[in-house]
């Protein structure tokens, strides 16, 4: 295969404190362009920490990140603030809680994704270029938000709709990589599938590399093409879906259903 778009080498993440937590322990990973990867694991296994280490959002929680992370050949952990912003602008991040600004209109929330491409002064004045505005409308329609809702405040949307705005916001970045941290954990099963299908379609149509964190085994097996299993901050599985025995995988990752594992 080609060179990896993302290479994680000996990654260890520690949350300092009275009782420091080692959330990731010597993780190694290579992700290739166009892959659709699901990171599976129970709560607390380190899924969020992994994604948040890749774009260094984990530093907001004062996490200590050690090791090497190469995105598109650049060492993320060595990047300056300016370089980091450049790197982040190529990585779309989707949050479990959508993280939209409730008081801003849907359209503006989406346009936020283009901030790194818009002139600084223009962005502060809120005067986005026509081209970006049109892209935002198209992205929203594409993820299933009809045109007449684009002027509404985000607060008036349902959870599933807010997550669609979150995806549209990421699309405006023209990302090379999408990181989605439990994007459907707060949604009902039907909506969850609709949203997962959007990710799938983006990955298939545009070849955007996608890493999705999921804790639900059903969704994991339904959408994952390659599955990485995390447990206690270590990678215990990293295989294409075809090579995975579902029974033993579930037992290893989640423990048995009757709790004997």
């Amino acid at each position, binding site marked *: 295969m080609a060179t990896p778009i993302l290479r994680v080498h000996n990654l260890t993440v520690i949350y300092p404190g009275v009782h420091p937590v080692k959330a990731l322990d010597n993780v190694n990973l290579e992700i290739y362009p166009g892959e659709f990867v699901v990171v599976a694991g129970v709560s607390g296994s380190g899924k969020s920490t992994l994604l948040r280490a890749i*774009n260094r*959002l984990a530093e*907001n929680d004062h996490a200590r990140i050690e090791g090497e992370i190469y995105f598109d050949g650049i060492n993320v952990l060595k990047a300056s603030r300016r370089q*980091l*912003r*450049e*790197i*982040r*602008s*190529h*990585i*779309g*991040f989707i*949050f479990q*809680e959508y*993280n*939209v*600004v*409730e*008081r*801003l209109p849907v359209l*503006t929330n989406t346009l*936020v*994704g283009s*901030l*790194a491409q818009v002139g*600084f002064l223009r*962005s*502060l004045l*809120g005067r986005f270029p026509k081209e970006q505005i049109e892209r935002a409308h198209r992205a929203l329609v594409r993820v299933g938000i009809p045109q007449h809702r684009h002027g509404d405040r985000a607060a008036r949307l349902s959870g599933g709709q807010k997550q669609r705005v*979150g995806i549209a*916001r*990421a699309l405006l*970045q023209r990302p090379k990589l999408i990181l989605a941290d439990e994007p459907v954990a707060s949604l009902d099963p039907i909506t969850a599938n609709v949203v997962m299908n959007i990710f799938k379609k983006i990955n298939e149509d545009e070849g955007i590399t996608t890493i999705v964190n999921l804790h639900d085994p059903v969704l994991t097996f339904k959408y994952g093409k390659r599955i990485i299993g995390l447990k206690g901050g270590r990678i215990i599985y990293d295989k294409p879906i075809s090579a995975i025995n579902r029974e033993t995988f579930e037992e290893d990752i989640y423990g048995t259903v009757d709790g004997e594992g």
Partner: protein
Amino acid sequence: MAQWTERARLSGEVWLRRFGFSLGLLLLLALYGWALRGVEFDLSSIFKYGGKFFELLGRMYPPDFSALPQLVRPLLQTIQMATLGTFLGALMALPLVVFGSQLVVRSALIYWPVRAFMNILRTIPDLLYAVLFVAAMGFGPAAGVGALSFFACAIIAKLTSESADNINPKPIEAVEAVGANKLQVIRYAVLPQLIPSFIDHVIYVFELNVRVSAVMGYVGAGGMGMQLTTAMEWRNYPQVLTIALLIFALVIIIDMIANRIRDAFVQGIKLHPVVRWLEWGILAGLIVWSFISLEVDLTRLRRGFGYFSNLVWAITTEPATEYLGLAIQRMVQSLQIALVGTTLSFLLSFPLGFLASRRYVGIPVALAVSMKQIPNIIRAFPELILAIFFIATFGPGPLPGVLAIAIHSIGMLGKFNAEIVEKIRKEPVEALQSSGASRLQVFRYAVLPQVLPEFLALFIYRFEINVRAASVLGIVGAGGIGSLINEAQSYRAWDIVGICLVVIIPTVMAIDFLSARIRKKLIEG
């Protein structure tokens, strides 16, 4: 045997508690005795000279409305000063709030100093700002605008940063994650969440500023207050009454308008774009008009800047330590004034609170409704004007300060007392009523226990506010540390003014801190 010792232990505990209670009571009595002496409180002189107060009022009546045309300009100036002061204050407050927020700047090296600065600004009372700015920029409205903008900035920043601590941090991460820079994060994730409460506080501060702006001319800072000084000096009492009434009317009208705007804003009424643009236009016009007619010029600003750097220089390099003792002594008197004034006010407003709420006491509706209006009317009379009246009655000294604070505070205490009484749970009341308790018993065992902690919390909060008032009323002659500032100011003794600031700022800060702690304890139980 075992039972006997148990009983002995119990009665020992009872005695201990009684002893503690008596000791506390004794200490409290001693505190009040000390404070009453400190403020030269003397009922006989109140009764003896109290008549003079009404005599004074009598000489004011009837008001001299022929003076009205002359008062139009000062009245407009008062509004202009309040508008411009609030506008500039809001402009200054916003960056303080943003850069004082942990959520926005994650470095304690930035947000701690900003927060400390905010807290210092907040401790300086309104009139003290006025005195400082008059000294800095000379007589006139420019000084008033300077003082009001700092006063406004302090309060807006304080209130809004409380809201800023409660904004949702998640959208901030989302905007950071797309590669936006700090200012873009502020523009798209922080400000949209902050603006509603910010505007609410700006409107509130505009109300406050109108009150302050109306009287601060008394120390030379422009507006109606200057007219008041002249009328007082010429003993033109009918004109004094006219001015007082005009200020009173202005405050009430502005409060009414502000409330309407706030309600419309809170309910988020959708306005037609034309109406919206019209409103912005009116607002912008008002600000520009104020700016032009107040003649705020650059040389004055430069002069003001020089004054403040001199002041800070004097404080840090050659503090007038020989006056420290005197300043502390006067500050203590200010605390005594605040304590006695607040207590008096509390005693007066206590029955008012119960009467204004007719739910449990059963008084005629009409009486209750009219009782409710009394606090609102009293609140609109600034302390300063009351202090001036009382000084004219009793002569300069702490007593007029006490009385001014006592009367003015009835406004707020009466209003909130009534609200507390309205809010009590009715189940305990009904339980007692159904057991055949008398009205007084119901009051003692079902009403009082419910309202007492909240009353105390309110008392302490008002004390906190009155400490600020008591530190500055001396500027017009009503005792406390303000009187020292007044003397120092007239001799241009900056170093003494400086030492007063050095005493006032930490004292007010400490009182604020303690008050917040105690109130939290009281309310949370």
